[in-house]
């Protein structure tokens, strides 16, 4: 199983050519079988191979949270997860939230509160908020701050995002547009 060779300096090293592997991922309820090298991250597979470009790759070093996806209903960072690690796992991305043309309550609330400006952080925010609301249907402002602390937004100043999550959980924030 484990190939050990000697490199040019005569030191023991792993083989430099990494093997391509077949990985099965269930993205938004649909199984995909993709061939990946170990160095390919989950967000690269979702965007480039599967073609779901809703998930954004921004800092690509685990700092900003734009690539947040749900693996087995846990919010994780797609840019610092290797695709080979996700073999056989259930993955949800932002495309899995809406039902056809009908937006999910959290997406509606984001629209209504104007909780996005450039929109680059929004897929990650939506996934973190979805994971929060599934575990805790009536979060307080503090819970929301804690759950969304891993997502950076440079436009909104966060207040409208927190309002949107409160509105989606049905907690007395007045809809702005309707």
């Amino acid at each position, binding site marked *: 199983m484990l190939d050990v060779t000697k490199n040019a300096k005569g030191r023991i090293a792993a083989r430099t050519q990494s093997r391509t592997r077949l990985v099965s991922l269930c993205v938004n309820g649909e199984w995909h079988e993709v061939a990946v090298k170990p*160095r390919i*991250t989950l967000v690269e597979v979702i965007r480039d191979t599967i073609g779901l470009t809703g998930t954004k790759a921004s800092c*690509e070093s685990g700092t900003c*949270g734009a690539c947040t996806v749900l693996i087995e209903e846990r*919010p994780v960072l797609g840019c610092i997860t*290797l695709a080979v690690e996700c073999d056989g796992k259930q993955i949800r991305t932002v495309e899995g939230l809406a039902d056809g043309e009908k937006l999910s309550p959290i997406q509606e609330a984001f629209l209504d509160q104007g909780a996005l400006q450039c929109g680059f952080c929004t897929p990650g925010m939506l996934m973190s908020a979805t994971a929060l609301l599934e575990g805790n249907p009536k979060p307080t402002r503090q819970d929301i701050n804690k759950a969304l602390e*891993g997502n950076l937004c440079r436009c909104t100043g966060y207040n409208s995002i927190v309002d949107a999550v409160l509105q989606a959980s049905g907690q007395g924030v007045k809809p702005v547009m309707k």
Partner: protein
Amino acid sequence: MIFFDFDYERADTLEDAVAMLARLQGDARALAGGTDLLPSMRMENIKPGLLVSLSAIEPSEPELLADGSIRIDALSRLASLENSAFLRSKVPMLVQSAHVVGGNQIRQMGTLGGNLCQETRCMQQDQKHDYQFVAPCFKRGGECCYPFPRNGRDICWSVYMSDIAPALIALDAQLEILGEAGSRRIRVEELYTGNGLKPLRLGHAELLRAVFIPPAPRGYTWGYHKSTVRGGLEFGMAVIAVALQLAQDGKTCTDARIVIGAVREGPVRAAAAERSLKGAALDEERLAQAAAKASKEITPLPHHGFTKRHLMDNIRVYLRRTLVRALERARNPGALA
């Protein structure tokens, strides 16, 4: 996006993983949560030929042992620690320290063992070396330290940023380390060498298996504080963990452990400040003197834009407040969550 190729194996047990790491003699790295390893691989600070994934190994639940100590699996996710009602009632300081690590996603991915074994950091290594157009620094195999050009030969002044290690040292916890020859137990503070080039006293084929926390002695009280700029998703400016043991009268201190993290190459104990508290009747005046002493005896390394003076002031002020809170907690355990 990682720019170089490497191979990948998944280990079924921790012993398997150690055997694989041993065969590769330093060219392999263990991958648990990946929240520290994969960013450093993206920056090409570490270029292993093989990653040994531990993701197939299920961590066991925290358990209470017969001697009253608590065993926590090193592969436990930080989110499972902060949400554990058992740990919250037994070791609230550990839960608090797990709660302030990184962001929510980082805590969902990262493991306890990975947090303790994280690399030291500095601003030079937060950027990919190719973008810097300078010769490599000590840690990347070069001949210079850019943040501290005059700090002498072969000294890497990078800072160890774990939030949990200071809490574990204040709790006097022990680690079980699994190697080729079997497992050994050390105290958490013995894990750190105090050398930025090689901050951990771990062989290339050694992995943490579990953390053991001894039962809290009578009259024990604790305080924990992480100073940050934003309050979330960042490394600490200084991390303070204190554990005090008070005599029956609730005033005289019989034992004190003061640990400061994120200011040196490993967590450091403020020995002189601890000595000044031992046997003394504690009041705010005494605690303020101890905090001032601690800030002088620990020489913080300037890191991430914070000057030494700033960090000393930070330690002096927040250590005093943390100690005062610990004392309040002892007098009125219900008042502070």
